């Protein structure tokens, strides 16, 4: 399979903290790639670098063979890289449907927005179909701020899908939601993957990652540690060391998860 998205030798320091240190990552077209590592290992920073929110000190990000290092988030999104956030971010004072319509303009020039209404019938139909897909179409006219945490996760996934991105970066899609919804989310990811969408997923829920991903990359202290199939990664002693060696507060939980998985 061809490489769709690649980060090569990325370094980023915040003050004295070296968040990313020569970190590399490859995502193959059509795959579901997992990105795991202890808290503070730089997973979210890497997401931010790839999607243009953080400019790396060194290294390159390439997408479909093009260098996109340092491109602005709106440009990155327009190229076909969508993402969700760890702390779910929706637009709380507009309706759920209006949330869905924001991403429809990604390929329009900004001046076009002045001259057209906020949605066409096709866009609304498409938005409703996607809301239906994630199962919250009945809430379309509600203020998005009234949604529960799990519904917000679904909405965030749905409004990224509106722009039909080639690759979707999910930052802890299963974080803080219950088992039923976790299964629902992983089912949606499988369906979308079957339709050809590529995923890169940061997640602490090992069961979720191991069952879903074809490839898993482990990060540790800002560096790429190991990449491989879930079974290989699970057996790799370096991975256990990474989780056990650090002083992170959720180590016990993760050790257990890695051992049991």
């Amino acid at each position, binding site marked *: 399979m061809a490489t769709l998205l690649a980060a090569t030798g990325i370094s980023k320091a915040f003050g004295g903290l070296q968040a990313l240190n020569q970190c590399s990552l490859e995502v193959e077209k059509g795959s579901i790639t997992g990105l795991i590592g202890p808290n503070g290992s730089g997973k979210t920073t890497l997401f931010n670098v790839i999607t243009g929110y953080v400019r790396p000190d060194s290294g390159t990000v390439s997408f479909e063979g093009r260098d996109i290092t340092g491109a602005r988030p709106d440009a990155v999104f327009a190229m076909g890289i969508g993402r969700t956030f760890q702390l779910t*971010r929706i*637009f709380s004072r507009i309706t759920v449907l209006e949330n869905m319509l*924001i991403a429809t303009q990604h390929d329009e020039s900004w001046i076009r927005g002045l001259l057209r209404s906020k949605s066409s019938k096709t866009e609304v139909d498409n938005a409703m179909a996607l809301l239906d897909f994630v199962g919250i179409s009945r809430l379309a006219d*509600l203020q998005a701020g009234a949604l529960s945490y799990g*519904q917000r996760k679904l909405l965030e996934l749905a409004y990224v899908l509106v722009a039909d991105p080639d690759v979707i970066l999910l930052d802890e899609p299963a974080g803080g939601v219950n088992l039923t919804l976790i299964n629902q989310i992983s089912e949606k990811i499988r369906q979308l993957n079957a339709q050809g969408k590529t995923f890169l997923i940061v997640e602490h829920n090992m069961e979720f990652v191991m069952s879903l991903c074809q490839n898993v990359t482990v990060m540790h202290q800002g560096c790429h540690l190991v990449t491989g199939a879930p079974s290989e990664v699970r057996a790799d002693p370096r991975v256990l060391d990474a989780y056990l060696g650090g002083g992170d507060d959720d180590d016990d939980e993760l050790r257990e998860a890695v051992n049991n998985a």
Partner: protein
Amino acid sequence: MLQKKNLWWLVAFGALGLFPVLVTNPTYTTIGVFTIIFMACATSWNMFSGYSGYIALGSAVFYGSGAYTMALLSIHLHMAAGSELFALVPVGGLVAMVMAVPIGWIALRVRRHTFVVITIAVFFIFQLSAINFGFTGGTSGLNLPFITWGFQNYNTPFYYVGLGLTIFVTLVSALVRRSRFGLQLLAIRDDEDRAMGLGVKVTAVKITGFTMSAFTVGAAGALYAMFVGQIYPQFVFDPMFDVSIALMAFLGGLGTLSGPLLGALILEASQQYLTVTYSNGSLYLILFGALFLVVIIFMPQGIVTFIRDRVSRRAERERAAVAANDAPPSPTTPVEGVAVGGTH
């Protein structure tokens, strides 16, 4: 078919249009002119700051620019005193828009509180410039061509041009709210970084909104200069103007269409009335302070949003009551029904 909501707008603007016909006392029509000017300005301010959440406290820059445009052009072009000066009203708006582009480009690089501080700083730069430059006449201000309309009818043309501006900016504001551009402004208000991550060109959208909102404020400033006949830096570049139009929008309902109109109507009219009746220029400040305490404590979203919520909640209750009588109660409300696995 005319919708009920649009009918209310027609009635409201019709009433505003009838005001100078019904009230002929120049003391009150003067209050009317000032009020209508502030209604236009507050709506225009709300079109950017209310929708995008970027609270600008330097709109007097545009008001003053419009006023000085009117004064300088009418003086240097030797224009005849009369209704042809109204042609300079939109010119004042355009000059304000030209000013807004670089100001927005600088100020909109920062967010929230820093943005507020920068707009205030830019405002003081303009005020000090107007006081110190020669071409502005300095502290002695500028005198416009003297209009010799009769005392009895002097106010009416100004009132109708002001009403025209108000209707214009209300329509633009309504169109913006329905456009994709308006949706982008609201998205920026709720979460600018997230909007950027969904492809919204936030810088371009913000500068466009900021510039658009400058037009009517500048035009209103030009109208004001023509109306009062002489301008001074401290009155056209007035910090109270900055604060007033923001407070009017807050009082009526930030980000709503009718809120700024209502807020300006209440505040400016009562301020002018108190000033005229008690010939005390600062009495209104006490009233404002008390009024704002009441609003912030009891309806922090503003009057319009407060009433709208009340009405929709009552409609909801009535609907629920009807549903309860008609059908057996369902075990869950629709919201909870879909939330299976979604609630925590």
